[in-house]
């Protein structure tokens, strides 16, 4: 049997180090993928646009002094199509009209008291 050749140990060791480094980098890559997934999931879950739309529609309607016909429509359609409980009320007894907005879709709850100075 040939005598053991003890040259080239550096090459072997560097090979090991590089392969371990590649493995660690792969872990980092996998981790970043999970971060991207959870981020976009929470963006999808959070009803940002629902609340913005509701607010902007109610602000527009406040100019029309909130016809009571619309009140129920928005609340009922919200419950049926978006599974969200929506309540709002325009209080005109004070000096300035005050608009109360309540939104709850089971995950996110939003309350607002709005009045113009």
């Amino acid at each position: 049997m040939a005598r053991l050749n003890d040259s080239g140990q550096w090459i072997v060791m560097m090979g090991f180090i590089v392969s371990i480094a590649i493995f660690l980098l792969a872990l980092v890559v996998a981790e970043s993928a999970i971060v991207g997934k959870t981020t976009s999931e929470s963006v999808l879950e959070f009803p940002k646009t629902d609340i913005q739309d509701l607010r902007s529609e109610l602000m527009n309607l406040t100019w029309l002094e909130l016809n009571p016909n619309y009140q129920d429509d928005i609340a009922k359609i919200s419950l049926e199509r978006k599974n969200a409980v929506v309540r709002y009320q325009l209080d005109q007894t004070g000096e300035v009209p005050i608009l109360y907005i309540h939104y709850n879709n089971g995950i996110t709850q939003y309350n607002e008291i709005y009045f113009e100075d």
Partner: protein
Amino acid sequence: MNDSGQLYTIEGVAAAIMMVITAYLVISSASIFTPQEKHVAQMQLEQLGHDALVVMDTPRENGVQSNLSDAISSDKPEWFKANYSPLINTRTDGTQDTLNYSMSVFYWDSDTDSTKEIEFFNEWDYHRENAAKVTQWAYIESGTDRTAVLQDTIVLVEVLLWRD
């Protein structure tokens, strides 16, 4: 024949197997990208579709109806398409993107005490592609034809968006 170096050969084969296994592990652990990219794509689709609806629901000037309310109250699905398609399908290089969509209008029917749907725009068939649903409230002053039931009311506009 030189009969030395068999151990080195075996070592080389073992190293090759190790590298192949490592490469397999790396690639299979990185393939988690697929579900993640679906979520990112869906999020972008949702934001694009909603932004376009908001633009359409913004009146050009004070006191006039928005393009969205206009299309619904005139019962003109082609107006909706003419306004909505450029907003979501325009690319910077001048070509057209391939997003398809359908649009429905939901209103509250007080006679039957239930939500009613008007299938307003339904040109393309939906074959269970990965889709996003976006909504927008709209005020309709007076509808015509199919939307004649909508008089001085609030409706919910629902758009289903998917990439063809």
